């Protein structure tokens, strides 16, 4: 009789915890759908071709996102071009070449710490080093270099994880064929680790796309009447444009801001799905 009781209680406990963690999952999904719903219901009818191709305006109906959209694309592409090679290079060095010295430990510890530094600090660093010291001005290049610094720790750490997951047996097999270290890295290690590296990089780049604070410090602007043509041009980006609209007195601008958020979300989803596609492609190739 008593034993049955205990079993019953254990089973009930089990069910309660099952329900609790299910609720936790629901909580996230619920908040996300409320957010999405309010954004979509506000912004969807403001979304049009004109909205994409127009310049900002004091009239909500005429306001467009074109310079901010192009500014964001410029920034993201440059940031990717800078941070991808530097990040993977660092990770390769730390995992494959560096000896286990105090210095290596120190570098690793610092990279881990840098990942937790608030974004605005990077903005101030970017202002001091890129804008002022190197004289790059308040340009897209300064912004992209700052953003690269911001996301490098993320890229390095996730690349390190990916490189570490390459089975030692594969590398030894490669060495057994008489290859050099570099040949093993390019032929075996990198291809195997690439899906993991890509995931980390894309996460970093998505973050750079959504950041506004460091760019405000570096000098991205609220209103730009032209489209950037070179990396030395001044610029604005989507998050700043959206923030700017959300703080305008006219109520309709709230809807314009919502439409801007939809565009930003769309690009983020686009980048993430490219990442997933690439990852799947390489994963399949490795299995063959």
């Amino acid at each position, binding site marked *: 009789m008593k034993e049955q009781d205990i079993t019953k209680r254990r089973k009930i406990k089990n069910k309660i915890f099952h329900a609790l963690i299910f609720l936790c999952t629901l909580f996230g999904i619920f908040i996300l759908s409320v957010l999405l719903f309010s954004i979509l219901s506000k912004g969807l009818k403001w979304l049009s071709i004109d909205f994409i191709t127009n310049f900002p305006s004091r009239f909500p109906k005429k306001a467009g996102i074109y310079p901010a959209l192009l500014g964001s694309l410029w920034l993201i592409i440059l940031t990717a071009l800078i941070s991808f090679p530097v990040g993977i290079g660092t990770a390769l060095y730390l995992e494959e070449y560096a000896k286990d010295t105090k210095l290596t430990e120190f570098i690793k510890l610092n990279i881990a710490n840098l990942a937790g530094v608030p974004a605005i600090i990077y903005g101030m660093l970017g202002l001091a080093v890129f804008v002022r010291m190197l004289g790059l001005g308040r340009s897209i290049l300064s912004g992209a270099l700052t953003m690269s610094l911001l996301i490098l720790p993320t890229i390095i750490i996730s690349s390190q994880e990916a490189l570490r997951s390459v089975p030692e047996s594969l590398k030894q097999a490669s060495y057994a064929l008489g290859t050099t270290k570099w040949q093993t890295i390019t032929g075996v290690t990198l291809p195997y680790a690439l899906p993991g590296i890509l995931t980390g990089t894309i996460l970093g780049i998505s973050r750079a796309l959504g950041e506004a604070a460091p760019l405000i410090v570096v000098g991205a602007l609220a*209103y730009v*009447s*032209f489209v950037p043509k070179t990396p030395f041009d001044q610029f604005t980006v989507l998050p700043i444009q959206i923030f700017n609209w959300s703080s*305008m007195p006219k109520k309709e601008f709230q809807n314009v801001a919502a439409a801007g958020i939809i565009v930003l979300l769309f690009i983020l989803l686009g980048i993430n799905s490219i990442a997933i596609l690439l990852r799947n492609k390489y994963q399949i190739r490795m299995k063959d």
Partner: protein
Amino acid sequence: MKRILSALLIAATALSFSACAKQEKLAGTIKIDGSSTVYPITQAVAEEFNKQNPDVNITVGISGTGGGFKKFVVGETDINDASRKVKDEELEKAKANGIEMMELEVAYDGIAVVVNKDNNWVDDITTEELKMIWDKDSKVVYWSDVRPEWPKEKIKLYGPGTDSGTFDYFTAEINGEEKRIRTDYTASEDDNVLVQGVAGDKYAMGFFGHSYYEENKDNLKALKINGVEPTTENIRNGSYKPLSRPLFIYVNTKSLERPELKAFVKFYLEKAKDLVEQVGYVPLEDAKYQEQLNKIK
């Protein structure tokens, strides 16, 4: 470097063109930064100016009046939007860098003190009472602490954050010292957050730019200050005291020699009357705009 060179080139060609033919197309880059309060006006002017002069690149930032002056006094920008007059230390810095500036008034702005639509006990408040409520170490917790006949309900306060010119102006005028204010109010740099805060709470009180009140009249009630209503007329003639103020742009006099910049500033003052009203501020008197225009001739 390249950019500076090309800008110089463009400026030089523009200059030589304007020398021989006045109707020549304007080109170049105009850099503006400063107050977020003045921003909507400047943006509107830039938008209209670009319709006629598509080759002039205009950038407008919103670093705040003080933040904008930091860039202006080292010559990084041509024009600074300002919701207060330039400070002495800013003038000194400009002088040290060889920068001279011209002050131009462009509009009036009032600061509205607002309460909830359902608030039926207060229509009118004095500056002394405002100071009692908002001052540093204020003892006011309940509405009844201000006037005994008001309800014994907690007063919820909303105001702009410390980077805003509106904040500087309100604290200086009401509490007698810039940035002197009680610390336990809800602060936000985004005025729409303040609007929502006051609109959603029967016992709330807040202050922000008059244009935000105009856009949200349905949900808010603006208080008379010392018996004067915050109407356009009262803000313009200064009787809405002490919470009405002029808005400025500061122009680098050296930049003013560039034809595209001079054209822009002239355009600004000529079109300001209509544009200022469209974006929710109070235009100056016609004579006053003419006075400003004479300054740049």
